[in-house]
């Protein structure tokens, strides 16, 4: 805990009980953005409600724009960010889908803003529960994706996201995702840093080309003909290419202050793992439990948790998994007709250059809030052991906890 306090500040970090939504709202209060424009949607509603209360109670200076839809919310965020403000919004699922048109505008204009998302399934059938279909649908919209395992990571990622997005070499919007309900509504004990530490850590925001600087006029959102569009899209990629280094540097700096270090991925018992699961967000917690059980039984199980899905940390993934014998990638999202889930495609591609890559299989799980019991995770490891033993891979893509 001592590590979490800065030299000159007297107050200490606090241990609090908060939901994942509450943890994000608390980070927002400390960040005190210039503008928050949002439209509440389950399961991220509590973030917007709690933050609205902070505004009403005068705890933040934020201009809180209550819009009539998510499309308008993201549009208002674009305007505010182009104006030169530090901006944030919150959404998920259908709300995110409704924002879609503006998501590419945000990243194309290189507007640094942060969007918290409580991951939730997409219609149809209508379902308000958690899975990753919503953010996976926007995986190539030019946003940086950070996924959080629990409330603590939701809080930490929200604070760090501003530093990443606003870095002059990145200048790219960042989304911070938590699992709908599993994390958004679960009350957990977590550490909240002091207001001063967060304020100092994120620093004063210096916008690149604020529109409200009338002495230096600038045009946002010009049209391109075929003679320039490609050059602009290549130029946009610079932020994404620079992001991994910045994400790691910010994660290290944050760790030096709080004791909680962050990278692109988190390896759990991977040093000597023979069988590995790759997964994102809350499910990583369950997998860690299963690993502890299996290790006692002498099974060399490990976990590679992806924190930064975009830009995808291919080198780190390849390095970590190349030592294993077999790998199962758990996607909380359907394949949509692809060769597997989105995470699986990335992981398998990352291993293509390896001399003797492990066998990689894919499981689709947890759609629309479907539970993933620990015994199912255990079965995955046992199958991985069997694949390694026999060399027979079997089905490439399968489902977990599906009635059939």
């Amino acid at each position, binding site marked *: 805990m001592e590590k979490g306090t800065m030299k000159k500040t007297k107050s200490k970090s606090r241990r609090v009980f908060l939901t994942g939504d509450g943890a994000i709202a608390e980070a927002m209060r400390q960040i005190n953005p210039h503008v928050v424009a949002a439209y509440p949607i389950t399961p991220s509603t509590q973030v917007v409600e709690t933050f609205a209360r902070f505004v009403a109670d005068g705890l933040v200076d934020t201009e809180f724009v209550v819009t009539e839809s998510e499309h308008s919310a993201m549009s208002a965020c674009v305007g505010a960010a182009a104006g030169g403000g530090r901006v944030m919004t919150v959404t998920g699922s259908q709300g995110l889908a409704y924002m879609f048109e503006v998501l590419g505008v945000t990243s*194309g*204009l*290189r*507007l640094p803003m942060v969007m918290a998302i409580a991951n939730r399934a997409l219609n149809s059938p209508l379902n308000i529960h958690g899975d990753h279909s919503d953010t996976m649908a926007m995986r190539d919209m030019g946003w940086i994706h950070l996924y959080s395992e629990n409330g603590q990571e939701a809080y930490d990622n929200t604070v760090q996201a501003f530093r990443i997005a606003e870095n002059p070499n990145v*200048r790219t919007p960042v989304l911070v995702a938590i699992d709908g309900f599993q994390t958004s509504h679960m009350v957990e004990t977590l550490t909240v840093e002091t207001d001063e530490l967060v304020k100092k850590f994120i620093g004063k925001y210096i916008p*690149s*080309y604020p529109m409200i600087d009338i002495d230096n*006029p*600038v*045009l*946002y*959102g*010009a049209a*391109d003909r075929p*003679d*320039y569009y*490609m*050059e*602009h899209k*290549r*130029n*946009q990629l610079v932020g994404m290419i620079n992001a991994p280094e910045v994400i790691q540097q910010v994660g290290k700096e944050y760790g030096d202050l709080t004791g909680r270090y962050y990278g692109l991925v988190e390896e759990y018992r991977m040093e000597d793992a023979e069988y590995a699961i790759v997964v994102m967000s809350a499910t990583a917690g369950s997998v860690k439990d299963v690993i502890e059980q299996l290790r006692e039984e002498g099974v060399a199980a490990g976990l590679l948790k992806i924190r930064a899905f975009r830009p995808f940390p291919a080198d780190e993934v390849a390095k970590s998994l190349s030592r294993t014998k077999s790998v199962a990638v758990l996607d909380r999202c359907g394949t949509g007709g692809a060769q597997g889930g989105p995470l699986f495609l990335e992981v398998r591609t990352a291993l293509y250059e390896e001399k003797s890559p492990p066998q990689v299989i894919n499981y689709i799980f947890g759609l629309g809030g479907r539970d993933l019991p620990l015994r199912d995770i255990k079965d995955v490891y046992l199958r991985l052991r069997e694949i390694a033993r026999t060399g027979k891979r079997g089905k490439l893509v399968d489902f977990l906890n599906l009635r059939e």
Partner: protein
Amino acid sequence: MKKQELKKWQELPIGGLILDMGNSSETQTGDWNPNRLVWNEDTCTHCLLCWINCPDASIKVENSKVIGIDDYHCKVCGICVEVCPTKPKSLEIISEEVA
């Protein structure tokens, strides 16, 4: 006007922003139109109604007199033709094949 030099991606400002204000004259915004606007000097009274109504500042004027059309920026919208008071009109749209 000579053909514009196209920039490399490294030379572009971040986010497709345009930082030099009033630089639209550098882009040949009117070169896509298959039609063309022609001006008849003989009937023109230099009332400048076309000049004040043109949305693209494409009526070239010197010393309060029309001197021609800026073909690189005129989009051939016909607004000037509409407002020209002379009979016959001193501005006319012709198709490029004719031109």
